[in-house]
């Protein structure tokens, strides 16, 4: 059922302009090789959903002009500081932000996962996050008395896109405790995944691996991409390339620096991927 594709270029070709795409935070491997391919292809007008935040991969896409909306609880490069292209784009008014708070993103995805019209959640009332989200509503808790509660509508991305450690030949993808990837895959219409390696074992047949595996039913297309999360970490395979990320954070502080980074690291990298 899962399309096994030969390259990240082939995967990137699946993402049309204007798609609503869910991506993981930087502590979960991002599909950076795929995103570099998408930038080379020139994808435009993405609506990025951070689950519940995003970092390097989103900042890169914003800097490259691929994003029109950032729906997320935060954008951060972690120890490397503020996400410079996101910050610049917000200040320049060139992207729309839909600020959230982490559990609201999960609540929306869980409503989509369940096929429910919305989730309810505590918190948020009296915040400017809520005041600026006209797509969220305050309703009365029918089980309480004078008890307002926030309703978060189902958040169904067109695509969930992430990198994982391994998949089998049927397209089952092991994510271990990085369970936000499973939630994203359940909630999204389509899921595109890159993996460090494709293994011969059936990941579902053994319950020990099955417990951390997204069944291929939810995985639309998949490609092997060794070092596919670089410069982010893939636990058990490689650590984050912190020197590179620090260099990114420095260069991306200016448009010129970012363009140099883009030319060297993304546009000039095609042969390597």
């Amino acid at each position, binding site marked *: 059922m899962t399309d096994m594709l030969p390259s990240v270029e082939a995967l990137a070709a699946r993402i049309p302009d204007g798609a609503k795409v869910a991506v*993981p935070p930087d502590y979960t491997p991002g599909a950076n090789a795929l995103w570099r391919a998408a930038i080379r292809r020139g994808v435009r007008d993405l609506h990025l959903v951070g689950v*519940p935040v995003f970092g390097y991969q989103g900042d890169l896409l914003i800097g490259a002009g691929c994003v029109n909306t950032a729906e997320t609880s935060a954008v*951060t490069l972690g120890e490397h500081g*503020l996400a410079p292209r996101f910050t610049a784009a917000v200040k320049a008014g060139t992207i729309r*932000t839909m*600020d959230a708070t982490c*559990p609201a993103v999960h609540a929306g995805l869980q409503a989509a996962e369940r096929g429910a019209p919305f989730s309810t959640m505590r918190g948020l009332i*009296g915040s400017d996050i809520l005041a600026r989200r006209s797509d969220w509503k305050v309703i009365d808790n029918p089980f309480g008395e004078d008890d307002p509660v926030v309703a978060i509508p189902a958040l169904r991305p067109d695509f969930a896109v992430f990198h994982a450690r391994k998949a089998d030949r049927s397209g089952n993808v092991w994510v271990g405790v990085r*369970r936000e990837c499973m*939630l994203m895959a359940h909630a999204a219409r389509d899921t595109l995944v890159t993996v460090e390696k494709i293994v011969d074992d059936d990941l579902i047949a053994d319950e020990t691996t099955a417990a951390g595996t997204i069944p291929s039913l939810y995985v639309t297309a998949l490609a092997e991409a060794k070092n596919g999360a670089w410069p982010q970490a893939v636990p058990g395979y490689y650590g984050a390339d912190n020197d590179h990320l620090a260099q990114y954070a420095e260069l991306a502080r200016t448009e010129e620096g970012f363009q140099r980074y883009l030319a060297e690291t993304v546009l000039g990298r095609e042969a390597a991927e």
Partner: protein
Amino acid sequence: MSDIQLEEILIGAIAGMLAGLRHVAVGASSPVPGAAALLARAKSGTVPRVSVLGSRDNNFFTDGGKELFDCAGQGRIDAFFLSGAQIDGRANINLVSIGDPDRPKARFPGSFGSGYLYYVVPRVILFRLEHTRRTLVDKVDFVSAPGVSEPNVYRPGGPYKLITDRCLFDFDKAGARFVLESVHPGHTVEEIAENTGFEYDVPASVPETPVPDAETLALIRGPVARQIAEIYPAFAERVFGIAQAA
């Protein structure tokens, strides 16, 4: 005692706020609160569980990114730490932007989980190492999460203390105001007034924030420093002189 560093005083003071709790969670990029939670655990055994996001050794969650928030919603997290680019006198916090949010003068990462955790975690400790009129303001430009809520809003949690590089404030929920609780060694009540942009209460007598005793200091510089180095190697090197692994 001149060799005691500010971070060590803060770690000791925060650890005191955590005594007797069952489960303290610490967000990413929070080395001082993380060390304080580890110290509280090391000192007394009264905080049996510390969850540090981003840690390998102190993060037991197995249900993905949502579990921290679910856990808090279940009432299983007793204390958490939040900060703010701005914090105002009603304990509103701003993690988003200065000026019009659509064309801001400054933009910060975003609210993270504050729009939920500030409401449901009983002891939220506000932590801000830059104590100036720029950060501690009369009214925040953007409310990521309010300090107090209307009586009909579900709010089992909220602000407990605010600790800065100059002093410690208690938060008076009923009055929705901060109260100066202690001033760190080397700082003065007058200096706090000059550098704070919001109104707050000052008792007749304001003590100095206690510094850690020798035993506590040994714990901070020994096991706590070693544990925090796993998560925050740069911090551990700068404050405790622990060399980073190659």
